Structure formats: structure tokens, C-alpha cells
């Protein structure tokens, strides 16, 4: 007789779903192999490296001034912050002083860059959650920021504006007025996006309590930036170890409570407001003067090694620079914030739904250019 017992035969099958590298919600070429039971994720294996260009190795073959452009392309959403961190590393190594005005311009542009980056996040996060309008609002405002960058740096994305020892050139004459007007528009725009998305019942239902991570685990994974601050850890390099002229501004660090996706989202929204506060103060305090310390085109920093920290929109970035006294660095290592934040994905996605996977991944706000380098 045939065995008609259905023991084990009628179990639902675990399906392997290959999410990415080409998937609309992986924010680049990130691949997750998901094992799903129906809609529920049983296990997953993240795969990165599809955008690995060997940036760190490339740095070893370029002059110091050329490397700034490589950093531009690492986290292509927050170029200026990346330029800044490398320049600061070289300046620290050489003991090169940066003119005050240059520091202020750097801070203003970096914070503006942070706003642009977070705006992009708000938009794409909306898309991840299924709302299609927020990204249009966010991009409307981000475009204005990009135009501002264009006016100052001459490029919309790969600026190469922050140079070792200062910035490429002074800002346009009407910079203050234009910034003031821009900030006003941005405030309004952010409030609009906020109203549209942040407190929508459905958005709350989709993000509250999804992808919760506690502070201890987050620290163990090396998460940083808004993703860590959402767990209630007020860790921000701009406060902990103020670089540039950040100690002269009055601003707060938004921190979340539960460490869920909504907290990660809203910490960023609040951060935009704080960034704009910084920009306003910086615009008021900005002194006149030169914008770059003249230095040789082919820099030969002294032998030694240095690690500098900086606060990127995505989290804490660090550059470990080893110099042997030559015109090219001996070794450059970047601590990429997205890389560390993304590492926690396995923890975050455990036992969630496929739809949550998209939201949680979106809430980490990764940039694959930086994860893979």
C-alpha cells in the first residue's frame, strides 16, 4: 500500500528569495538571500561587494590632493562630508592650520549636505513604505540644495571643493542671503514632508516597533549615527570630540527611544532641523579672511599615522591614514558608517516579514558605494 500519511509532506516549503543585487529597494547593488516561510523571513544572508572598486587601494597610488576625488565617490550622497574627513586627516598629520573662514564654509556645506542626504533618505524611505509622494517633495528641496552646491562648488555632486588646508575658493558674494532664503524654503519643505509622512497612521503602523535593536547590541555591531542615536545613545562626534568649529554652535542631538525604524526615521528628520540651526549660526559668525592655507601641490606629510573621526549623515566615519613621508599615502583605511550599520541587518531582520525587510533596510539608510568602497 502506498504511504498516505501526510506527515512532513504537507509542510509549507521554505522558499529562497534572492533579494537584489537588482531590486528596487536594496538602495544599490546589495543582495540579501532570504529564506522565507510564506511571508516571514526565517533566515537571511547578506552579500555585499558588488560595487567594490578598491577605493582604499586606489588611494595608495594617488597624490594626496587627488584622493579627495576618490572620497567624493565613496558615499556619493554626502560627498562634502567625505571630502572633509580626508582633508582633516591630512591636515592633522601635517599639523596644517585651516583658515577660520574655510572652517565655517566647510561646516555650512557639510551640514547642508547632511540635510540633502537626510532628505533623500526621507523620500526613499517613503518609497520603501509604499508612499510615492514624499520623494517628490524631498527631491524638490534637495534639488535646491544641489543648485546651491553648484553655485558654490561648481558641481552638483562630485564637488572636490574641500581641499587640504581649506576650500577651493570663496563662496559667492550673495551667499548669506541665498542661504537664508534656502533655509526658509527647506524648513517649510521639511515640515511638509513631515506632515505628509511622519504621523500617517499607516506609516506609523509600518515602522513603529519594526526592526527594534537595543543600544547594547547596536554598539556591539558598531552602529553609529542616526541608527545608533535612535536607540537612545547620544553619540555624536560633533559633540563628543568637536572638530572644525562645531564647538561654537548651539545644537542638540536628537535621540530616539525604542530603536525602531520610526525612531531611525524621525531622528533624521530632527537632525535636519538641528543642521539648519547650525548653518544659521555659522552664517552669522562667519568671519572674513582667506579660505585656504597655501601649500604645495605635491604634499609630503611627515611619517606617521593618524585616525580622525567625523560625523557623516549616515554615521561616524573615520579615516586611518598611514604616511611614510612620500607624496602618496602608505595606507588609507576608511571606517564606513554604512558598512557597520548594515552589518546589523541580520539581527534586525530576524523573524520579520518581507515587507518589513524593505522598511528596515531603508531605515538604515545605506549607500552601497560606501559599504563596498
Amino acid at each position, binding site marked *: 500500500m502506498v504511504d498516505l500519511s501526510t506527515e512532513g509532506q504537507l509542510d509549507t516549503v521554505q522558499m529562497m528569495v534572492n533579494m537584489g543585487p537588482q531590486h528596487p529597494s536594496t538602495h544599490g547593488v546589495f543582495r540579501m538571500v532570504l529564506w522565507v516561510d510564506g511571508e516571514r523571513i526565517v533566515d537571511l544572508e547578506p552579500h*555585499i561587494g558588488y560595487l567594490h572598486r578598491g577605493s582604499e587601494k586606489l588611494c595608495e597610488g594617488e597624490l594626496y590632493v587627488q584622493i579627495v576625488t576618490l572620497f567624493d565617490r565613496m558615499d556619493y550622497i554626502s560627498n562634502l562630508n567625505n571630502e572633509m574627513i580626508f582633508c582633516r586627516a591630512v591636515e592633522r598629520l601635517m599639523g596644517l592650520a585651516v583658515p577660520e573662514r574655510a572652517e565655517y564654509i566647510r561646516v555650512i556645506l557639510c551640514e547642508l549636505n547632511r540635510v540633502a542626504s537626510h532628505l533623500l533618505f526621507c523620500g526613499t524611505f517613503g518609497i520603501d513604505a509604499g508612499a510615492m509622494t514624499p520623494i517628490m517633495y524631498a527631491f524638490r528641496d534637495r534639488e535646491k540644495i544641489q543648485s546651491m552646491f553648484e553655485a558654490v562648488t561648481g558641481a552638483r555632486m562630485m564637488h572636490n571643493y574641500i581641499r587640504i588646508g581649506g576650500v577651493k575658493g570663496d563662496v559667492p558674494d550673495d551667499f548669506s542671503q541665498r542661504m537664508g532664503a534656502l533655509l526658509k524654503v527647506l524648513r517649510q519643505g521639511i515640515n511638509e514632508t513631515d506632515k505628509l509622512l511622519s504621523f500617517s497612521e499607516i506609516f506609523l503602523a509600518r515602522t513603529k516597533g519594526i526592526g527594534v535593536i537595543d543600544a547594547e547590541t547596536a554598539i556591539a555591531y558598531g552602529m553609529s549615527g542616526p541608527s545608533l542615536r535612535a536607540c537612545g545613545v547620544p553619540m555624536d562626534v560633533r559633540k563628543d570630540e568637536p572638530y572644525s568649529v562645531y564647538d561654537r554652535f548651539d545644537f542638540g542631538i536628537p535621540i530616539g527611544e525604542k530603536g525602531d525604524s520610526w525612531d531611525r526615521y524621525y531622528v533624521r528628520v530632527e537632525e535636519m532641523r538641528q543642521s539648519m540651526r547650525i548653518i544659521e549660526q555659522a552664517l552669522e559668525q562667519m568671519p572674513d579672511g582667506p579660505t585656504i592655507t597655501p601649500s604645495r601641490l605635491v604634499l609630503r606629510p611627515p611619517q606617521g599615522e593618524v585616525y580622525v573621526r567625523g560625523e557623516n549623515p549616515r554615521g561616524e566615519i573615520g579615516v586611518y591614514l598611514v604616511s611614510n613621508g612620500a607624496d602618496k599615502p602608505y595606507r588609507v583605511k576608511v571606517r564606513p558608517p554604512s558598512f557597520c550599520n548594515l552589518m546589523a541587518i541580520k539581527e534586525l531582520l530576524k523573524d520579520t516579514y518581507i515587507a518589513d525587510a524593505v522598511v528596515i533596510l531603508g531605515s538604515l539608510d545605506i549607500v552601497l558605494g560606501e559599504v*563596498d*568602497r
Partner: protein
Amino acid sequence: MVERHRREEAPQAPVDLDDKGRALELLLPGILAEFQPEIGATVNLVSVTVKSQDVPSVCRLVKEDPRLSFNFLMCLCVVDYEEHLQVVYHLYSTDMKHMMVLKANVSPEEPSLPSVTSLWTGADWYERESHDLFGVVFEGHPNMAPLLLYEGFEGFPGRRNYEMPEYKEW
């Protein structure tokens, strides 16, 4: 081409520690005495060099000691000094807000040292990356599969003696 030799004639960068760094510099020799560390400083951080087999115990000690409490692995990387590979750990404490560098040298022929993933989960991908690019084997790592490179990639492209393949049209 990459400049291979170290330029001995170049000046040394001056050490310029902040208050926390100086405090650490005084504190560390006492705590780590049993491991006979070489305690020095990079430009802005205290650096401790230990033997590679001591890495996990030193890490555990600096993580658990309340005066240090280095609970945050900021960065893990490998520097190829040709005569040896140096594994560099940048450690940070979220409570004390201070930072130090831990270094361990391994031989380039058979580079291997114990993994620290049990202490800091975040060491996972860093160690895999270092394995990919420099061939350093981290003993006790749960999954040493290639991370950034594809399966079956030949050689260790992070090392300085890696010959870049000629550019080819695909």
C-alpha cells in the same frame, strides 16, 4: 607605481595627544602589564602593540576593565608593512569617550590571529574584509567566506606586492 620602500629620511609627525589620550597613556601600562605591550602613540592616539596571540585576552581586558571599557570597535584594518602585516584595532568607549589603537603584527606568509567577533559582533565583516584583501585568517570566526571579492578570487589585492592584472576589455 606605488612607492615600495619606506622613506627613512622623512620627518616624523609630532605626537599631539589630548587630555584623554595622556590619561590613557598613564593608565594603560599598569592595566596591561602582564602582556608586556609596547605603548606608544600615533599622532593623536595612544597605541598599544601586543603579540598576536594575546589579542583576544587584551581585548577582553580593555573591554571589561571599568577604567577603560572599550565597548565599541571603531575600525579594524590591516596595514601591509611588507616585512609584517599589522592588524590594527581602533577601540572606542561610548562611556568614557576615549579611544586607543591596538596593534598586532603577523607574518605575511602565514598570517593568522584569533578573532574578536565574540567580543564585538561588529568585527565580523571587518575580519572577512581583511581576509579577502590581505589573507589574514581570523581563527574562530564563524564564517570566513569572501565578502567583497567573489568566490575563487586569486591573491590578496590589499597587499602591496599584489600585481594588478592588466586592463582587459570584457
